[in-house]
Protein backbone atom coordinates (compact mmCIF):
# COMPACT_ATOMS: atom_id res chain seq x y z
CA UNK A 1 0.00 0.00 0.00
CA UNK A 2 1.53 3.31 -1.03
CA UNK A 3 2.31 5.65 1.83
CA UNK A 4 0.64 9.04 1.90
CA UNK A 5 3.03 11.60 0.48
CA UNK A 6 5.20 13.57 2.85
CA UNK A 7 4.67 16.69 0.79
CA UNK A 8 1.68 17.41 -1.40
CA UNK A 9 0.97 20.53 -3.42
CA UNK A 10 -2.41 20.74 -5.09
CA UNK A 11 -3.39 23.45 -7.49
CA UNK A 12 -1.01 25.92 -5.87
CA UNK A 13 -1.39 29.48 -7.08
CA UNK A 14 0.86 32.25 -5.88
CA UNK A 15 1.69 35.83 -6.77
CA UNK A 16 4.60 38.13 -6.12
CA UNK A 17 3.21 41.61 -5.94
CA UNK A 18 0.99 42.12 -8.96
CA UNK A 19 2.53 39.28 -10.88
CA UNK A 20 0.93 35.86 -10.86
CA UNK A 21 3.81 33.36 -10.91
CA UNK A 22 2.21 30.06 -10.05
CA UNK A 23 -0.95 29.14 -11.91
CA UNK A 24 -1.60 25.71 -10.52
CA UNK A 25 1.26 23.55 -9.33
CA UNK A 26 0.68 19.93 -8.45
CA UNK A 27 3.41 17.99 -6.80
CA UNK A 28 3.78 14.91 -4.66
CA UNK A 29 6.81 13.79 -2.75
CA UNK A 30 6.99 10.55 -0.79
CA UNK A 31 9.15 10.04 2.23
CA UNK A 32 12.69 9.01 1.44
CA UNK A 33 12.37 10.16 -2.16
CA UNK A 34 14.33 12.70 -4.13
CA UNK A 35 12.15 14.68 -6.50
CA UNK A 36 13.67 17.02 -9.03
CA UNK A 37 11.72 20.09 -10.06
CA UNK A 38 12.55 21.08 -13.59
CA UNK A 39 11.57 23.79 -16.02
CA UNK A 40 12.79 26.77 -17.93
CA UNK A 41 13.85 30.04 -16.37
CA UNK A 42 10.82 31.80 -15.03
CA UNK A 43 8.69 28.69 -14.89
CA UNK A 44 8.15 29.12 -11.18
CA UNK A 45 10.50 26.60 -9.62
CA UNK A 46 12.06 28.92 -7.08
CA UNK A 47 8.69 30.44 -6.30
CA UNK A 48 7.34 26.97 -5.59
CA UNK A 49 10.08 26.33 -3.05
CA UNK A 50 9.57 29.73 -1.51
CA UNK A 51 5.85 29.11 -1.26
CA UNK A 52 6.41 25.86 0.58
CA UNK A 53 8.74 27.63 2.94
CA UNK A 54 6.26 30.41 3.54
CA UNK A 55 8.09 33.33 1.98
CA UNK A 56 5.41 33.66 -0.67
CA UNK A 57 1.78 33.49 0.27
CA UNK A 58 -0.43 31.08 -1.59
CA UNK A 59 -3.37 32.71 -3.35
CA UNK A 60 -5.15 29.43 -3.90
CA UNK A 61 -4.54 25.73 -3.62
CA UNK A 62 -2.98 23.77 -0.78
CA UNK A 63 0.38 22.79 0.63
CA UNK A 64 0.37 19.81 2.95
CA UNK A 65 3.22 18.38 4.95
CA UNK A 66 2.46 14.91 6.25
CA UNK A 67 -1.21 15.56 5.78
CA UNK A 68 -1.22 18.88 7.63
CA UNK A 69 -1.74 22.17 5.86
CA UNK A 70 1.25 24.44 6.17
CA UNK A 71 0.37 27.14 3.72
CA UNK A 72 -0.15 30.35 5.61
CA UNK A 73 2.26 29.48 8.37
CA UNK A 74 5.11 31.87 9.07
CA UNK A 75 8.52 30.90 7.75
CA UNK A 76 9.99 30.06 11.13
CA UNK A 77 7.02 27.85 11.93
CA UNK A 78 7.42 25.94 8.68
CA UNK A 79 11.08 25.52 9.49
CA UNK A 80 10.23 24.17 12.93
CA UNK A 81 7.86 21.65 11.35
CA UNK A 82 10.93 20.10 9.81
CA UNK A 83 11.40 21.82 6.46
CA UNK A 84 14.95 22.86 5.60
CA UNK A 85 15.83 25.35 2.89
CA UNK A 86 18.98 26.11 0.93
CA UNK A 87 18.24 29.08 -1.34
CA UNK A 88 19.83 29.72 -4.67
CA UNK A 89 22.18 32.36 -3.29
CA UNK A 90 23.03 30.04 -0.40
CA UNK A 91 22.01 32.52 2.29
CA UNK A 92 25.35 32.44 4.04
CA UNK A 93 25.93 34.99 6.79
CA UNK A 94 29.15 36.29 5.36
CA UNK A 95 30.17 38.39 8.34
CA UNK A 96 29.89 35.44 10.69
CA UNK A 97 32.35 32.59 10.95
CA UNK A 98 31.54 29.15 9.61
CA UNK A 99 31.00 27.92 13.13
CA UNK A 100 28.68 30.81 13.91
CA UNK A 101 26.71 30.09 10.77
CA UNK A 102 26.16 26.58 12.02
CA UNK A 103 25.26 27.81 15.46
CA UNK A 104 22.40 29.87 14.09
CA UNK A 105 20.83 26.60 13.04
CA UNK A 106 21.57 24.64 16.18
CA UNK A 107 23.90 24.79 19.20
CA UNK A 108 26.87 22.37 19.12
CA UNK A 109 26.03 18.79 20.00
CA UNK A 110 26.01 15.20 18.73
CA UNK A 111 24.21 16.22 15.54
CA UNK A 112 27.16 18.41 14.66
CA UNK A 113 29.47 15.40 14.75
CA UNK A 114 27.29 13.39 12.43
CA UNK A 115 26.77 16.18 9.94
CA UNK A 116 30.37 17.36 9.94
CA UNK A 117 31.48 13.80 9.26
CA UNK A 118 29.77 14.11 5.91
CA UNK A 119 31.18 17.58 5.29
CA UNK A 120 34.90 17.46 6.07
CA UNK A 121 35.40 20.66 4.09
CA UNK A 122 33.21 22.53 6.54
CA UNK A 123 34.84 21.00 9.57
CA UNK A 124 38.26 22.07 8.38
CA UNK A 125 37.30 25.71 8.15
CA UNK A 126 35.17 26.27 11.23
CA UNK A 127 37.04 29.37 12.29
CA UNK A 128 37.04 31.08 8.91
CA UNK A 129 34.84 34.00 8.01
CA UNK A 130 32.07 32.58 5.89
CA UNK A 131 32.39 35.33 3.31
CA UNK A 132 35.90 34.19 2.51
CA UNK A 133 34.93 30.68 1.46
CA UNK A 134 34.84 29.63 -2.13
CA UNK A 135 31.53 29.07 -3.87
CA UNK A 136 31.70 25.34 -3.46
CA UNK A 137 32.62 25.56 0.21
CA UNK A 138 29.77 27.98 0.83
CA UNK A 139 27.37 25.59 -0.81
CA UNK A 140 28.59 22.77 1.45
CA UNK A 141 28.20 25.06 4.44
CA UNK A 142 24.66 25.97 3.44
CA UNK A 143 23.63 22.35 3.11
CA UNK A 144 25.40 21.27 6.31
CA UNK A 145 23.76 24.11 8.18
CA UNK A 146 20.33 23.12 6.99
CA UNK A 147 21.00 19.50 7.95
CA UNK A 148 21.89 20.46 11.52
CA UNK A 149 18.20 20.96 12.12
CA UNK A 150 17.56 17.35 11.06
CA UNK A 151 14.83 18.34 8.62
CA UNK A 152 12.30 15.82 7.38
CA UNK A 153 12.21 17.59 4.06
CA UNK A 154 15.07 19.52 2.50
CA UNK A 155 14.48 22.07 -0.25
CA UNK A 156 17.50 22.76 -2.43
CA UNK A 157 17.41 25.52 -5.03
CA UNK A 158 19.91 25.00 -7.85
CA UNK A 159 22.83 23.94 -5.68
CA UNK A 160 25.12 23.46 -8.65
CA UNK A 161 24.81 27.03 -9.94
CA UNK A 162 28.10 28.76 -10.44
CA UNK A 163 30.23 25.82 -9.39
CA UNK A 164 33.09 24.29 -11.31
CA UNK A 165 32.48 20.75 -12.66
CA UNK A 166 34.88 19.16 -10.20
CA UNK A 167 33.12 20.84 -7.34
CA UNK A 168 29.75 19.76 -8.69
CA UNK A 169 30.93 16.19 -8.70
CA UNK A 170 31.97 16.46 -5.08
CA UNK A 171 28.63 18.03 -4.18
CA UNK A 172 26.66 15.34 -5.95
CA UNK A 173 28.63 12.64 -4.19
CA UNK A 174 28.00 14.24 -0.81
CA UNK A 175 24.31 14.52 -1.49
CA UNK A 176 24.05 10.98 -2.80
CA UNK A 177 25.59 9.67 0.39
CA UNK A 178 22.98 11.52 2.39
CA UNK A 179 19.85 11.12 0.34
CA UNK A 180 18.91 7.62 1.35
CA UNK A 181 17.88 8.78 4.79
CA UNK A 182 16.21 11.97 3.62
CA UNK A 183 13.46 13.44 1.57
CA UNK A 184 14.76 15.94 -0.94
CA UNK A 185 13.03 18.42 -3.23
CA UNK A 186 15.67 19.59 -5.65
CA UNK A 187 15.41 22.34 -8.22
CA UNK A 188 18.02 21.96 -10.92
CA UNK A 189 18.77 23.35 -14.33
CA UNK A 190 21.69 20.98 -14.74
CA UNK A 191 20.10 17.83 -16.20
CA UNK A 192 23.10 15.70 -15.41
CA UNK A 193 22.90 16.50 -11.72
CA UNK A 194 19.15 16.00 -11.88
CA UNK A 195 19.50 12.58 -13.40
CA UNK A 196 22.17 11.51 -10.92
CA UNK A 197 20.24 12.50 -7.85
CA UNK A 198 16.59 12.35 -8.73
CA UNK A 199 14.30 9.37 -8.49
CA UNK A 200 11.26 11.22 -9.77
CA UNK A 201 10.72 14.47 -11.59
CA UNK A 202 8.10 17.15 -12.05
CA UNK A 203 8.27 19.72 -14.82
CA UNK A 204 6.85 23.21 -14.49
CA UNK A 205 5.99 25.49 -17.37
CA UNK A 206 4.57 28.97 -16.90
CA UNK A 207 3.62 28.23 -13.34
CA UNK A 208 1.90 24.94 -13.99
CA UNK A 209 2.80 21.30 -13.66
CA UNK A 210 3.01 19.88 -17.17
CA UNK A 211 4.67 16.55 -16.64
CA UNK A 212 5.62 14.19 -13.87
CA UNK A 213 7.03 10.71 -13.43
CA UNK A 214 9.97 8.48 -12.56
CA UNK A 215 13.37 9.74 -13.63
CA UNK A 216 13.89 6.98 -16.13
CA UNK A 217 11.09 8.45 -18.21
CA UNK A 218 13.11 11.59 -18.60
CA UNK A 219 16.21 9.77 -19.72
CA UNK A 220 14.36 7.51 -22.10
CA UNK A 221 11.98 10.01 -23.61
CA UNK A 222 13.86 12.89 -25.19
CA UNK A 223 10.68 14.53 -26.38
CA UNK A 224 10.00 15.77 -22.85
CA UNK A 225 13.37 17.42 -22.59
CA UNK A 226 12.95 19.01 -25.97
CA UNK A 227 9.47 20.31 -25.33
CA UNK A 228 9.86 21.69 -21.85
CA UNK A 229 13.46 22.07 -20.99
CA UNK A 230 15.58 22.72 -24.01
CA UNK A 231 16.89 26.19 -24.47
CA UNK A 232 18.92 25.88 -27.65
CA UNK A 233 20.87 22.90 -26.46
CA UNK A 234 22.68 24.73 -23.68
CA UNK A 235 21.37 22.33 -21.08
CA UNK A 236 22.17 19.23 -23.01
CA UNK A 237 25.69 19.14 -21.70
CA UNK A 238 25.48 15.96 -19.74
Amino acid at each position, binding site marked *: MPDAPLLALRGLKASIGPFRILEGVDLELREGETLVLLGRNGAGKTTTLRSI*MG*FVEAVDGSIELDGEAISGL*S*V*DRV*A*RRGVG*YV*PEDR*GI*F*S*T*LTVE*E*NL*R*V*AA*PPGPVWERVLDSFPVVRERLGARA*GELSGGQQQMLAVA*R*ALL*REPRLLLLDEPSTGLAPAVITELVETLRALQSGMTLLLVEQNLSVARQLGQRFTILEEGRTVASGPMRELTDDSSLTERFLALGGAEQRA
Partner: protein
Amino acid sequence: MDGGTAVTLFLNGLALGAILFLLASGLTLIFGLLDFVNFAHGAFFMVGAYVFAAIAAEGGSIALAFAVAIAGGAAGGFVLERVLLRRAYGNELHQFLLTLGLGLIITEIVRIIAGPNFQAVRELEYLGGNVSVLGGSVQEYRLFLIALGVAVFLGMLYVLRRTRIGLIVRAGVEDPSMVEALGTNVRRGFSIMFAVGTALALLAGAAAAPYYGGAGPALGEEQIVLAFVIAVVGGLGSYLGSALAAVSVGLLSSYAAFYWEPGASLVPVLLMALVLLLRPQGLIPQAGARI
Protein backbone atom coordinates in the same frame (compact mmCIF):
# COMPACT_ATOMS: atom_id res chain seq x y z
CA MET B 1 47.71 75.27 21.82
CA ASP B 2 49.66 74.02 24.81
CA GLY B 3 49.79 70.45 25.99
CA GLY B 4 47.38 70.93 28.86
CA THR B 5 44.69 72.40 26.65
CA ALA B 6 45.21 69.65 24.13
CA VAL B 7 44.66 67.06 26.80
CA THR B 8 41.53 68.78 28.05
CA LEU B 9 40.14 69.02 24.55
CA PHE B 10 41.02 65.41 23.95
CA LEU B 11 39.21 64.19 27.03
CA ASN B 12 36.25 66.44 26.40
CA GLY B 13 36.09 65.07 22.88
CA LEU B 14 36.08 61.53 24.21
CA ALA B 15 33.32 62.39 26.63
CA LEU B 16 31.25 63.85 23.84
CA GLY B 17 32.07 60.79 21.79
CA ALA B 18 30.73 58.60 24.59
CA ILE B 19 27.42 60.46 24.58
CA LEU B 20 27.19 60.31 20.82
CA PHE B 21 28.01 56.63 20.84
CA LEU B 22 25.22 55.87 23.31
CA LEU B 23 22.81 57.88 21.23
CA ALA B 24 23.81 56.56 17.85
CA SER B 25 24.21 52.93 18.81
CA GLY B 26 20.51 52.67 19.57
CA LEU B 27 19.70 54.20 16.22
CA THR B 28 22.07 52.05 14.26
CA LEU B 29 20.85 48.93 16.03
CA ILE B 30 17.27 49.67 15.13
CA PHE B 31 18.12 50.55 11.58
CA GLY B 32 20.51 47.67 11.10
CA LEU B 33 18.24 44.95 12.34
CA LEU B 34 14.78 46.23 11.76
CA ASP B 35 15.57 48.31 8.72
CA PHE B 36 13.56 50.96 10.48
CA VAL B 37 14.34 54.65 10.45
CA ASN B 38 13.37 56.30 13.70
CA PHE B 39 13.16 60.08 13.59
CA ALA B 40 11.77 60.16 17.09
CA HIS B 41 15.13 59.00 18.41
CA GLY B 42 16.16 62.57 19.21
CA ALA B 43 12.99 63.12 21.19
CA PHE B 44 13.78 60.03 23.25
CA PHE B 45 17.18 61.51 23.97
CA MET B 46 15.55 64.67 25.18
CA VAL B 47 13.19 62.77 27.45
CA GLY B 48 16.19 61.07 29.01
CA ALA B 49 17.76 64.44 29.73
CA TYR B 50 14.58 65.58 31.43
CA VAL B 51 14.46 62.41 33.48
CA PHE B 52 17.90 63.25 34.76
CA ALA B 53 16.95 66.85 35.40
CA ALA B 54 13.88 65.76 37.32
CA ILE B 55 15.63 63.20 39.50
CA ALA B 56 19.24 64.14 39.90
CA ALA B 57 19.45 67.85 39.28
CA GLU B 58 19.41 69.03 42.86
CA GLY B 59 21.85 66.45 44.11
CA GLY B 60 19.62 63.43 43.75
CA SER B 61 20.91 60.01 42.89
CA ILE B 62 22.53 59.78 39.50
CA ALA B 63 22.20 56.01 39.54
CA LEU B 64 18.47 56.28 40.09
CA ALA B 65 18.12 58.73 37.23
CA PHE B 66 19.95 56.36 34.93
CA ALA B 67 17.94 53.39 36.10
CA VAL B 68 14.64 55.17 35.52
CA ALA B 69 15.80 56.34 32.11
CA ILE B 70 16.77 52.84 31.04
CA ALA B 71 13.67 51.16 32.42
CA GLY B 72 11.35 53.84 31.08
CA GLY B 73 13.02 53.77 27.72
CA ALA B 74 12.80 50.01 27.43
CA ALA B 75 9.15 49.91 28.43
CA GLY B 76 8.22 52.86 26.27
CA GLY B 77 10.09 51.55 23.27
CA PHE B 78 8.54 48.12 23.59
CA VAL B 79 5.01 49.48 23.80
CA LEU B 80 5.53 51.97 20.98
CA GLU B 81 6.82 49.29 18.67
CA ARG B 82 3.96 46.97 19.43
CA VAL B 83 1.20 49.52 19.21
CA LEU B 84 2.28 52.02 16.63
CA LEU B 85 5.46 51.47 14.78
CA ARG B 86 5.12 47.96 13.45
CA ARG B 87 2.47 49.24 11.06
CA ALA B 88 5.22 50.94 9.13
CA TYR B 89 7.54 48.01 8.50
CA GLY B 90 8.55 47.73 4.90
CA ASN B 91 7.31 51.17 3.97
CA GLU B 92 10.13 53.62 4.32
CA LEU B 93 8.16 56.77 3.70
CA HIS B 94 5.60 55.70 6.27
CA GLN B 95 8.37 55.27 8.82
CA PHE B 96 9.72 58.74 8.12
CA LEU B 97 6.35 60.39 8.41
CA LEU B 98 5.19 58.43 11.42
CA THR B 99 8.31 58.70 13.53
CA LEU B 100 8.76 62.35 12.67
CA GLY B 101 5.24 63.05 13.90
CA LEU B 102 5.88 60.98 16.99
CA GLY B 103 8.97 62.99 17.73
CA LEU B 104 7.03 66.22 17.34
CA ILE B 105 4.32 65.09 19.70
CA ILE B 106 6.73 63.83 22.34
CA THR B 107 8.71 67.06 22.19
CA GLU B 108 5.57 69.11 22.53
CA ILE B 109 4.20 67.08 25.43
CA VAL B 110 7.46 67.52 27.30
CA ARG B 111 7.38 71.22 26.54
CA ILE B 112 3.86 71.46 27.90
CA ILE B 113 4.64 69.56 31.06
CA ALA B 114 8.02 71.01 31.86
CA GLY B 115 7.76 74.44 30.33
CA PRO B 116 9.62 75.85 27.36
CA ASN B 117 12.73 76.90 29.21
CA PHE B 118 16.02 75.20 29.64
CA GLN B 119 16.17 73.34 32.91
CA ALA B 120 19.60 73.76 34.35
CA VAL B 121 21.26 70.94 36.16
CA ARG B 122 22.95 72.37 39.16
CA GLU B 123 25.75 71.03 41.27
CA LEU B 124 26.07 67.29 41.14
CA GLU B 125 26.55 65.65 44.50
CA TYR B 126 29.19 63.28 43.24
CA LEU B 127 31.52 63.74 40.35
CA GLY B 128 31.03 67.46 40.45
CA GLY B 129 34.62 68.50 40.77
CA ASN B 130 37.52 68.91 38.44
CA VAL B 131 40.47 66.65 38.08
CA SER B 132 43.89 67.32 36.69
CA VAL B 133 45.12 64.88 34.06
CA LEU B 134 48.46 65.23 32.29
CA GLY B 135 48.44 68.96 32.65
CA GLY B 136 44.90 69.48 31.51
CA SER B 137 41.88 70.04 33.73
CA VAL B 138 38.74 68.06 33.13
CA GLN B 139 35.47 67.61 34.98
CA GLU B 140 35.17 64.38 36.92
CA TYR B 141 31.80 63.76 35.35
CA ARG B 142 33.34 63.73 31.90
CA LEU B 143 35.74 61.02 32.90
CA PHE B 144 32.75 59.14 34.19
CA LEU B 145 31.07 59.58 30.82
CA ILE B 146 34.05 58.07 29.07
CA ALA B 147 33.99 55.14 31.47
CA LEU B 148 30.25 54.72 30.92
CA GLY B 149 30.66 54.76 27.17
CA VAL B 150 33.41 52.17 27.30
CA ALA B 151 31.41 50.00 29.68
CA VAL B 152 28.31 50.02 27.50
CA PHE B 153 30.41 49.40 24.43
CA LEU B 154 32.13 46.40 25.98
CA GLY B 155 28.89 45.13 27.44
CA MET B 156 27.08 45.22 24.13
CA LEU B 157 30.06 43.75 22.38
CA TYR B 158 29.92 40.84 24.78
CA VAL B 159 26.23 40.34 24.16
CA LEU B 160 26.66 40.54 20.42
CA ARG B 161 29.69 38.28 20.19
CA ARG B 162 29.14 35.75 22.91
CA THR B 163 25.44 35.19 23.38
CA ARG B 164 22.89 33.47 21.22
CA ILE B 165 20.76 36.59 21.11
CA GLY B 166 23.72 38.54 19.83
CA LEU B 167 24.34 35.87 17.23
CA ILE B 168 20.77 36.05 16.00
CA VAL B 169 20.96 39.84 15.88
CA ARG B 170 24.16 39.77 13.85
CA ALA B 171 22.80 37.17 11.48
CA GLY B 172 19.48 38.98 11.29
CA VAL B 173 21.12 42.27 10.35
CA GLU B 174 22.56 40.54 7.34
CA ASP B 175 19.68 38.31 6.29
CA PRO B 176 16.57 38.11 8.44
CA SER B 177 14.76 35.77 6.04
CA MET B 178 17.46 33.18 6.29
CA VAL B 179 17.37 33.31 10.08
CA GLU B 180 13.67 32.59 9.91
CA ALA B 181 14.26 29.75 7.49
CA LEU B 182 16.53 28.32 10.16
CA GLY B 183 13.70 28.26 12.64
CA THR B 184 14.03 31.44 14.68
CA ASN B 185 11.27 34.03 14.82
CA VAL B 186 13.07 37.28 14.21
CA ARG B 187 9.98 39.44 14.39
CA ARG B 188 9.36 38.69 18.03
CA GLY B 189 12.82 39.99 18.71
CA PHE B 190 12.01 43.27 17.04
CA SER B 191 10.05 44.63 19.98
CA ILE B 192 12.93 43.76 22.25
CA MET B 193 15.47 45.34 19.94
CA PHE B 194 13.39 48.46 19.73
CA ALA B 195 13.18 48.54 23.50
CA VAL B 196 16.95 48.24 23.78
CA GLY B 197 17.54 50.96 21.23
CA THR B 198 15.13 53.31 22.95
CA ALA B 199 16.60 52.58 26.37
CA LEU B 200 20.03 53.49 24.98
CA ALA B 201 18.65 56.78 23.68
CA LEU B 202 17.21 57.68 27.06
CA LEU B 203 20.40 56.64 28.82
CA ALA B 204 22.33 58.84 26.42
CA GLY B 205 20.09 61.75 27.24
CA ALA B 206 20.34 61.22 30.96
CA ALA B 207 24.09 60.93 30.75
CA ALA B 208 24.31 64.01 28.56
CA ALA B 209 22.27 66.30 30.79
CA PRO B 210 25.17 67.35 33.05
CA TYR B 211 27.41 67.66 30.03
CA TYR B 212 25.09 70.12 28.32
CA GLY B 213 24.27 71.74 31.61
CA GLY B 214 20.64 70.76 31.64
CA ALA B 215 17.65 69.76 29.58
CA GLY B 216 15.72 71.74 27.04
CA PRO B 217 13.04 70.98 24.46
CA ALA B 218 15.37 71.77 21.60
CA LEU B 219 17.84 69.13 22.70
CA GLY B 220 16.26 66.41 20.62
CA GLU B 221 16.30 68.37 17.39
CA GLU B 222 19.99 69.14 17.57
CA GLN B 223 21.00 65.66 18.53
CA ILE B 224 18.98 63.76 15.97
CA VAL B 225 21.18 65.17 13.25
CA LEU B 226 24.29 64.13 15.11
CA ALA B 227 22.93 60.68 15.76
CA PHE B 228 22.24 60.12 12.10
CA VAL B 229 25.60 61.55 11.13
CA ILE B 230 27.31 59.05 13.41
CA ALA B 231 25.19 56.21 12.17
CA VAL B 232 25.82 57.07 8.53
CA VAL B 233 29.53 57.75 8.93
CA GLY B 234 30.00 54.58 10.90
CA GLY B 235 27.98 52.52 8.50
CA LEU B 236 24.29 52.05 9.14
CA GLY B 237 23.82 48.90 11.16
CA SER B 238 27.45 48.58 12.13
CA TYR B 239 27.99 48.58 15.85
CA LEU B 240 31.74 48.96 15.71
CA GLY B 241 31.37 51.61 13.06
CA SER B 242 29.15 53.73 15.24
CA ALA B 243 31.69 53.55 18.06
CA LEU B 244 34.50 54.60 15.75
CA ALA B 245 32.46 57.37 14.17
CA ALA B 246 31.24 58.66 17.52
CA VAL B 247 34.75 58.99 18.88
CA SER B 248 35.95 60.62 15.67
CA VAL B 249 33.14 63.14 15.57
CA GLY B 250 33.51 63.87 19.28
CA LEU B 251 37.21 64.57 18.98
CA LEU B 252 36.89 66.53 15.76
CA SER B 253 34.10 68.67 17.15
CA SER B 254 35.98 69.34 20.32
CA TYR B 255 39.09 70.56 18.53
CA ALA B 256 37.19 72.39 15.82
CA ALA B 257 35.10 74.27 18.36
CA PHE B 258 38.27 75.52 20.03
CA TYR B 259 39.31 77.37 16.92
CA TRP B 260 35.93 78.35 15.60
CA GLU B 261 32.78 78.14 17.63
CA PRO B 262 30.33 77.10 14.93
CA GLY B 263 32.79 74.38 14.11
CA ALA B 264 31.21 72.04 16.63
CA SER B 265 27.99 72.02 14.64
CA LEU B 266 29.49 72.22 11.20
CA VAL B 267 32.12 69.53 11.43
CA PRO B 268 29.76 66.58 11.84
CA VAL B 269 27.57 67.77 9.01
CA LEU B 270 30.45 68.29 6.61
CA LEU B 271 31.82 64.91 7.59
CA MET B 272 28.53 63.27 6.77
CA ALA B 273 28.32 65.00 3.42
CA LEU B 274 31.83 63.82 2.60
CA VAL B 275 31.09 60.27 3.63
CA LEU B 276 27.86 60.16 1.68
CA LEU B 277 29.65 61.40 -1.39
CA LEU B 278 32.77 59.30 -1.23
CA ARG B 279 31.98 56.23 0.80
CA PRO B 280 28.26 55.95 1.38
CA GLN B 281 28.49 52.59 3.03
CA GLY B 282 30.32 54.15 5.92
CA LEU B 283 33.58 53.47 7.72
CA ILE B 284 32.74 49.88 8.51
CA PRO B 285 30.28 48.70 5.90
CA GLN B 286 27.57 46.40 7.08
CA ALA B 287 26.85 43.43 4.89
CA GLY B 288 23.21 43.34 3.91
CA ALA B 289 22.66 47.07 4.22
CA ARG B 290 21.36 48.70 1.09
CA ILE B 291 22.71 52.06 -0.06
